[in-house]
């Protein structure tokens, strides 16, 4: 039963991937018709050279041939070449992917670790000043533009602190170019961008944990636990929290497919050398093929992530396999 489910979902994913490739290449098709590689470097190219270069890059093939070639390449891990300098997109991706994962991964972990206690406090002290304060922060956090928050943090902790002689945080990059590389250096660079990202997860997840906790605490089995004579602490943290965390894990799981793309704006503001920033930089140079390749890669990850999540839930909850 489980195997049938997995196969069905996998086939559905393949269909989605093919659809994605189709849309991707249809969009790309607009650009390859007129593009002349190397034209900015050497304006004196002869028409024959141009024709030869275009053939080399496969730019003059009919659409379906190009489509098939492209899929073939991707299946072999080749996501194309840059239109600017011919460098393979795959190597850029491999270069930058760990940085993005470092950033978004840290943000998610911090987000979870802070959301749980804040949510629990909000639920246990419902209606109190602390609860209201947390609600206000959550609601505000959801309305602040990420890029602006990043700018403000830089303004305060990099520029102003430095101005007043306080220890300040670096405002760009993952490591310092001079003494770069050690763990402390990486952490110091990571603090501000990860904070911005984590703040948004926090706003949503802490409220969610709070309402999940409130719902759990009104359940009958909590009454039973109290009737057994255990301390309120044990009731809340052992019997209650275990149940309240399940929906939260589900919610966090929904974020995982977007792990690669979620940090783009933050990466740009903080000059973080990740995949998002790569796409952005290349976009400014109109390097369509690199942007395409990166987009396609990110989309593949989303589809794979969704498939993985579906399979995991089917394992955990047998009822889903028959849907």
């Amino acid at each position, binding site marked *: 039963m489980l195997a049938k489910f997995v196969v069905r979902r996998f086939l559905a994913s393949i269909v989605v991937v093919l659809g994605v490739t189709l849309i991707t290449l249809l969009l790309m098709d607009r650009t390859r018709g007129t593009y002349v590689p190397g034209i900015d470097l050497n304006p004196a190219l002869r028409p024959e050279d141009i024709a030869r270069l275009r053939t080399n890059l496969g730019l003059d093939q009919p659409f379906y041939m190009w489509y098939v070639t492209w899929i073939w390449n991707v299946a072999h891990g080749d996501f194309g070449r840059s239109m600017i300098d011919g460098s393979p997109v795959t190597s850029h991706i491999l270069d930058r992917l760990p940085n993005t994962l470092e950033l978004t991964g840290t943000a998610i972990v911090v987000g979870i670790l802070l959301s749980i206690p804040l949510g629990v406090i909000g639920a246990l002290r419902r209606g109190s000043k602390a609860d209201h304060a947390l609600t206000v922060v959550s609601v505000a956090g959801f309305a602040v533009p990420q890029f602006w928050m990043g700018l403000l943090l830089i303004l305060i902790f990099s520029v102003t602190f430095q101005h007043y002689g306080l220890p300040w945080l670096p405002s760009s990059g993952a490591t310092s170019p001079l003494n770069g590389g050690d763990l402390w250096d990486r952490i110091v660079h990571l603090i501000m961008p990860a904070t911005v990202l984590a703040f948004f997860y926090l706003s949503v997840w802490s409220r969610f944990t709070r309402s999940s906790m409130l719902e759990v605490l009104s*359940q*009958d*089995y909590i*009454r*039973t*636990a*109290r*009737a*057994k*004579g*255990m*301390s309120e602490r044990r009731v809340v943290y052992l*019997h209650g929290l*275990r*149940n309240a965390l*399940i929906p939260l894990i589900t919610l966090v799981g929904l974020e995982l497919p977007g792990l690669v793309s979620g940090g783009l704006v933050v990466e740009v503001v903080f000059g973080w050398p990740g995949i998002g920033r790569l796409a952005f930089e290349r976009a400014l140079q109109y390097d369509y093929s690199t942007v395409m390749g990166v987009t396609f890669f990110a989309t593949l990850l989303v589809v794979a992530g969704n498939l993985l999540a579906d399979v995991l839930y089917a394992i955990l909850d047998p009822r889903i396999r028959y849907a």
Partner: protein
Amino acid sequence: MATTLLEVQDLRTVFATKNGNVKAVDGVSFHLDAGETLGIVGESGCGKSVTAMSVIGLQRPGRIVGGRVLFMGRDLTKASETEMREIRGQEIAMIFQDPMTSLNPVFRTGWQVGEPLRLHRGVDGIRALAGAVAMLGKVGISSPAERAKSYPHQFSGGMRQRAMIAMGLTTTPKVLIADEPTTALDVTIQAQILDLLRQVNREFGTATILITHNLGVVAGMCERVMVMYAGKVVESGPTTDVFAHPKHPYTWSLLRSIPRLDAERHEALKPIEGLPPNLIDLPKGCAFHPRCPFKIEKCSRDTPVLNRVGATQLAACWVTQAGTELKGA
């Protein structure tokens, strides 16, 4: 000579709402002797569950505003939370109506059933599990060792309730309070659970308070019965006497409203006229008088007090205290 384990004197529990104070328990007094079974009967909202919760101190968000709860001589209303926790689950155990939602879905059944042992007897996990398995077997669950490893949702309704009963008994409490233990179960399973409770009462000598709105359940199980209405006790006494000649119009109406197999065909059912009272704004005098077929003038002026009527029964009714017999079609 029966020892009185629990004596509740003039208990009052109140819930504050934005429309006023709800007097959920309004001067309730009763006692429970060792080994006996007492039934508490009444319709939904009459205060029977709140009374039980108040006994073990779980009446929150309500507040106990008067009266005493004497358990083996100690007044529980004055006990600290730590002291109450010693008593809950160990001396006085309580089981609830819906076993599906009353058991924690993420923990194994054996672990939950053994928890009172770990909490109160300081027993380690392995021995607690062994104790749980033994108790599961005693309440009639087959292959208890296997079953202990399952989760509550893997049990049937009747088995879950048996597990709940087992959970209440692991520490051999002196009192077991069962709040509507069979209401959420099929009729055939109800009979089995009631048998089990009877057996438990016999074998372990646990005094049992059985809360229900079903008169049939009381008839089969309880030696004494107490009828509640609008937060007060309106009648109490030995079950056979109360059912044979009720001394309060409410009890009388309840008994009369039960459909009978031997009734005449086309005979209309006899429901109790009117609706239950608003606990924030009770009628003046006797709370039942607006619906009472026997009422006299005094009933709408003065609140009746629980007094002896007949040899063995107590009733809070001016009419019967004046000597009138309750009869009618």
